[in-house]
């Protein structure tokens, strides 16, 4: 039975309450929403609710189920009224019973917040003056997103049926602390409001970037992130809470930005940019901030920035230090490839997972990225530098290294030409990664297997199918092993095999593919190590 229903007539509360009786329940909590006599300064005489019933019942049932799962309560019920309601009438009823009181309170709160946010229910207010108005019920605050008691921005008028609540005025941002700066002023603030900034990665670097840019009043923030929040992120990703674990970062970040500054328009992408769309997406923004821990994304961003003339702020961190580089996108200015022409092989550049990182390190570098972004958008002095900045937070050494463009891509046709070729090559290689659930399917599909892992790894987790071992570091030494038929390279995660496959394709062996996700992505079968 669904825990949610729509009622066109008055509800029998005693019966509802009884339905939540459970032998294991030690607590019961209910919420009632009533029709009150005013909203946003207008005297209200009554309400009319209209629902898209079929959808509301499905979505409402989901919300009740979510609350039960999320807080582990024993039973929950919700009824929402439709039709004409008088002052003091019950508009919505929620009841939750559970072993302990805390989860009952939280589940109750979760259900009402989500209902306000997600249900296709519209409210028409009747005023004493005789006129009426439809009032949006969405975009209410959702307490479970930030349950810390001090973060309460009542950005939107509270719903009329929260009896007794004092309606807060609509949020009006106050940028006076930054407009007071002579170089910013109202003109600068207008530039920020008109700006569109894309932030790629909502992790350790992305958290301060998004927070500061939202606070500063950047008009539109795009957020790209495909990951879900993991407990191991929390020491450095300061926008998120323990209870957010498992949720998509892009959704959490969007909510956080909206909570911080409701006037910011947020655009989200749950898929990473790829060679086929990076330039097109970059062209939609005034500035891009690259905050991923992925070298491939960094190179793709540099190429897209050069090709579209979009300024790009790159940063990366390693343990206790970081690097910062601004790619201006202007002809003649250097890019990432001017420094390191090709993407290094996997494992050469350490990641946070492999090498570790102290939480504040991406915090510092991300904050510097946010500062560079504001400098560029506002045209502040010093914004034009393209130097590589090395920041060591152990000994506080900061080194500025001017990048000489004549020593970089210019020797290979210039940044634009180099970027164009790199994107073209990457697009050609999009079919490199192939998916299989079991390796014998690959063999059935006509692939020959080459295992590019190190001998010690192969010994630890052998594959019990015919394969040849050529470690990834030696993959380009003898191209004769790729002669004839389709070849599938495989490694533990798909990273080394993907890189190796692209390398040998670059040497002309177009028949070489990589097992996407590596051995880790295969389905295990009982009695077999892999396959």
């Amino acid at each position, binding site marked *: 039975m669904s825990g949610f229903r729509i009622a066109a007539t008055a509800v029998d509360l005693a019966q509802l309450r009884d339905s939540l009786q459970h032998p294991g329940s030690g607590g019961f909590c209910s919420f009632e929403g009533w029709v009150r006599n005013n909203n946003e300064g207008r005297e209200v005489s009554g309400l009319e609710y209209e629902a898209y019933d079929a959808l509301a019942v499905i979505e409402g049932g989901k919300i009740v189920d979510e609350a039960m799962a999320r807080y582990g309560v024993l039973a929950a019920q919700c009824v929402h009224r439709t039709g004409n309601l008088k002052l003091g009438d019950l508009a919505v009823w929620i009841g939750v019973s559970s072993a302990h009181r805390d989860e009952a309170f939280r589940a109750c709160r979760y259900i009402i917040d989500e209902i306000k946010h997600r249900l296709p229910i519209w409210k028409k207010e009747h005023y004493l003056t005789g006129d009426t108005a439809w009032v949006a019920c969405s975009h209410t605050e959702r307490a479970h997103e930030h349950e810390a008691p001090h973060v309460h921005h009542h950005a939107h008028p509270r719903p009329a049926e929260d009896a007794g609540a004092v309606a807060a005025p609509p949020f009006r941002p106050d940028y006076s602390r930054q407009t007071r700066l002579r170089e910013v002023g109202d003109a600068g603030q207008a530039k920020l409001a008109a700006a569109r900034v894309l932030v790629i990665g909502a992790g350790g670097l992305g958290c301060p970037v998004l927070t500061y840019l939202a606070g500063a009043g950047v008009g539109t923030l795009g957020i790209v992130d495909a990951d879900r929040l993991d407990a191991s992120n929390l020491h450095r990703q300061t926008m998120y809470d323990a209870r957010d674990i498992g949720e998509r970062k892009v959704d959490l970040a969007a909510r956080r930005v909206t909570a911080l500054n409701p006037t910011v328009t947020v655009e989200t992408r749950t898929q990473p940019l790829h060679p086929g769309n990076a330039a097109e997406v970059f062209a939609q923004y005034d500035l891009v901030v690259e*905050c991923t821990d992925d*070298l491939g994304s960094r190179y793709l961003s540099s190429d897209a920035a050069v090709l579209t003339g979009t300024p790009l702020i790159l940063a990366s961190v390693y343990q206790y*230090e970081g690097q910062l580089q601004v790619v201006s996108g202007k002809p003649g200015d250097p890019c990432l490839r001017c420094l390191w022409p090709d993407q*290094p092989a996997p494992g050469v550049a*350490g990641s*946070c997972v492999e090498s570790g990182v102290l939480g504040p390190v991406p915090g510092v570098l991300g904050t510097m990225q946010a500062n560079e972004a504001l400098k560029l958008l506002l045209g502040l002095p010093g914004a034009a530098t393209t130097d590589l900045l090395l920041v060591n937070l152990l000994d506080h050494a900061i*080194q500025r290294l*001017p990048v000489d463009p004549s020593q970089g891509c210019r020797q290979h046709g210039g940044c634009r030409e180099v970027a164009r070729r790199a994107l073209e090559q990457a697009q050609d290689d999009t079919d490199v990664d192939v998916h299989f659930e079991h390796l014998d399917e690959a063999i059935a599909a006509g692939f020959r297997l080459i295992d590019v892992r190190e001998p010690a790894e192969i010994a630890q987790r052998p594959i019990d199918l015919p394969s040849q071992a050529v470690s990834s570091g030696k993959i380009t030494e003898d191209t004769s092993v790729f002669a004839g038929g389709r070849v599938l390279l495989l490694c533990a995660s798909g990273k080394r095999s993907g890189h190796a496959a692209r390398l040998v394709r670059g040497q002309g062996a177009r028949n070489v593919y990589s097992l996407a996700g590596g051995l880790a992505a295969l389905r295990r079968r009982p009695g077999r190590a892999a396959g």
Partner: protein
Amino acid sequence: MTTVNLQYYAQMREQAGSSGEKLTTQAGSLRELYDELRTRHGFSLPADALKVAVNTQFSDWSRALDEGDTVVFIPPVAGG
């Protein structure tokens, strides 16, 4: 013999076990110096995956060493 100041970043700092050192060397160029250091510290990165800077300017690997040069090796890093 030339005495130079060396600074290491990222995984090179880890592999060297320090963020820098003073070294007296017979190496004639940055490339020779790096080859010497690879043997000494077991640096895993080949020279062409690195940038090298001398006295806060990026340099060519063929550059000769001068007494008192500060040499910095910079690998690309990926964390975020």
